[in-house]
C-alpha cells in the first residue's frame, strides 16, 4: 500500500515537474526572444558594416542620463515607500473595521487605471502648477502622482496577500496579548504578506522607472524622457538604450528581492515574541 502510495506521489511530483518545466520554458521563450531580437538589432552596423557595440558604448557619453537615472531612482524609492505606508495599513484597517468600505476602496484603487495618462495630466497640471508656485517644482513632486498611478497594481497584490491570511484572527490574537496596532501591523501582518508587499514594491518601482507620459507632459526629465531623447540619435541607439533601461530595472528589482526575508507563513514564534515584548 505504502509502495503504491509512494509511486503515486512520485508520479504526481513528476507530473508537476514536467508541468513546471513546460510552462516556464514556454514563458521563457515567449518573453526573452523579443528582447534578444532587440539586442541583436542594436548591434547591427550601418549598411554593410559589421556588427558593432557602438550604440551601447555611446549610451555612456550622455551626461544628462546620470541625472535622469538618479531622479528616477529617488522617485521609485519615495513612491514605493509612500504607497506602502499609505495603502497597507489602510487596507488592513478597512478589512478589520470597515468592511463595507471595501468595494469603494477597490473602485478608488482602480480609477487611476481607467483614465489614460494623457488625460490625467490635464487634471494634474493645475495641481502641479499650484505646488510649483507655493512649494516646489522639483522633479521629486512627481512621486505624488506616481503613488496614485501605482494604486491599482499595489492594491490588487496586497489584497491577494491579505485574503490569504486570516487578518482578523491574527490581529485579535495579538491584540488580546496586549499588542498595540503598530506591533500588529509591523510584527504580525507585514511578515505574513511579505510576498504581496514585495510584489507591489516590484510593480511600483517598475512603474516609476518606466513612466513616460506624465513626466513628459509636465516637462520633467525622468529616465524614460531622457531615453526618448537619446533614442533620436539613430536607430541602434534608440533600441540599445531601451534594452539597457529594461536590464537596469531588472537589476534594481533583483536587488530589491533580497529584502524579502520571506518567512511567508505565520510562525508561532511571532506570537511568542509579541507575548515576550508586551509582557516586558
Amino acid at each position, binding site marked *: 500500500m505504502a509502495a503504491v502510495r509512494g509511486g503515486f506521489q512520485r508520479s504526481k511530483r513528476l507530473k508537476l515537474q514536467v508541468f513546471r518545466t513546460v*510552462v516556464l520554458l514556454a514563458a521563457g521563450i515567449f518573453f526573452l526572444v523579443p528582447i534578444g531580437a532587440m539586442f541583436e538589432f542594436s548591434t547591427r552596423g550601418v549598411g554593410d558594416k559589421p556588427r558593432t557595440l557602438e550604440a551601447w558604448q555611446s549610451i555612456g557619453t550622455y551626461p544628462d542620463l546620470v541625472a535622469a537615472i538618479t531622479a528616477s531612482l529617488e522617485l521609485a524609492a519615495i513612491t514605493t515607500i509612500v504607497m506602502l505606508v499609505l495603502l497597507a495599513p489602510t487596507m488592513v*484597517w478597512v478589512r478589520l473595521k470597515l468592511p463595507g468600505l471595501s468595494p469603494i476602496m477597490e473602485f478608488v484603487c482602480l480609477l487611476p487605471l481607467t*483614465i489614460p495618462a494623457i488625460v490625467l495630466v490635464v487634471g494634474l497640471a493645475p495641481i502641479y502648477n499650484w505646488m510649483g508656485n507655493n512649494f516646489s517644482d522639483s522633479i521629486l513632486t512627481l512621486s505624488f502622482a506616481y503613488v496614485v498611478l501605482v*494604486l491599482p497594481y499595489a492594491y*490588487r497584490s*496586497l489584497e491577494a496577500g491579505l485574503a*490569504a491570511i486570516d487578518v482578523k484572527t491574527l490581529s*485579535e490574537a495579538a491584540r488580546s496579548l496586549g499588542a498595540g496596532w503598530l506591533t500588529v501591523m509591523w510584527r504580525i501582518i507585514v511578515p505574513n504578506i511579505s510576498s504581496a508587499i514585495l510584489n507591489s514594491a*516590484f510593480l511600483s518601482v517598475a512603474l516609476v522607472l518606466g513612466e513616460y507620459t506624465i513626466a513628459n507632459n509636465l516637462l520633467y526629465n525622468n529616465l524614460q524622457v531622457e531615453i526618448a531623447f537619446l533614442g533620436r540619435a539613430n536607430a541602434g541607439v534608440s533600441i540599445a538604450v531601451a534594452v539597457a533601461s529594461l536590464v537596469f530595472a531588472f537589476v534594481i528589482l533583483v536587488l530589491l528581492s533580497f529584502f524579502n526575508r520571506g518567512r511567508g507563513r505565520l510562525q508561532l514564534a511571532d506570537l511568542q515574541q509579541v507575548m515576550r515584548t508586551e509582557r516586558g
Partner: protein
Amino acid sequence: MTIAGAPAVSTTAGRPLLGGRRLPLDWIGTVPFLAYVAVFLFLPTVIVLGGSVFDANGSLTLVNFSHLSRVYIVKATIQTIGLSAFTAVVGAILGALVAYAIAVGNPQGLLRRLTLSVSGVLAQFGGVTLAFAFIATIGPAGFVYLWLAQHHADIYARSTWLFELPGLALVYLYFQIPLMVLVFLPALDGIKPQWREATESLGGGTWHYWRYVAGPLLAPAFLGATLLLFANSFSAYATANALINQGQPVISQQINGALSGEVGSFEPGFAKAIAVEMVIIVTLVTVLYSLLQRRTSRWLQ
C-alpha cells in the same frame, strides 16, 4: 484578561456609549488615505470629467457627449472592450499557470527571484519599444517570420495580422501575463501544502482539491486580477499607437488625437467626454465583476 473577551470588531449595533463612539474613531484610520486620494486622484478626475460639459467658450453643453456617437468612436469602443476582455481572460489564465509554476517551487530560490524581477519589468514594458520588439521578431522583416517563410510557412499570406487587432492582442499579452503573475502569486502563496495533504488523506483527488479547497479560495483573487488586467488593457495607449497608427482602433488613441496633434484637431471637451465614457465602461465591468464574485462564492461554497 479583561480584553480577551471583548471582540475586536463590534458586531452589535446600538450599545449607545460604545457604538456611538466607535464609528467616528474607525473612520479616522482611513483619513490619511482618503485625504491623499482626494487631492491627487479625485480632484484631477473631477477636473477632467467635469471639463467634458464645457465647450470651447466655457459654456455648459452636452455637445461633446453627442460626438460620442461618431462612427469611428463607437467602433473603437467596441473593439477596445473586446480586445481588453480577450487579453484579460487569456492573460489571467496563462499568467495563473506561470504563477502556479513558480509558487510550487522553492520560495527562496533563484528562479523565483529572477522570474518575479523579470515579471516586474515586463509588466510595465510597453509603447514603441515593445512594438518594435515584436516587429523585430515576427514582423515582416523579423527573423522568426523570415525563417518560417524560408520553410514555406508565410504567416502573413492573407494579411499582416501583426498590424491588426490579433497582433495587438498578442503584444498586449506580453505585459498582461507578467502583471497577472505578480498580482496573483500572493494568493497562491497563501495556499498551505497541508490542505492538499488533508484533501488526499480524506480520499479526494486533484479535482476535489481544486473544486472544493483551492478554487474557492483563489477565485476572488483571480477575478480581481482579471479585472485589473481588463482596466490595464483598456487604458493602454502607446503600444497600440505604435503598432496600429492608422485607423486608430483603440479608444485611447482617439482621446490622444483630440488632445494632441499638429493639424488643429484639438477638442479637449470631446477628449474628456471620451474619458467619461471609459470610466463608465470600467465601472460597469467592475459591477459585473462584483456580481460575479458573489455568484462564484455561492457556487463554490
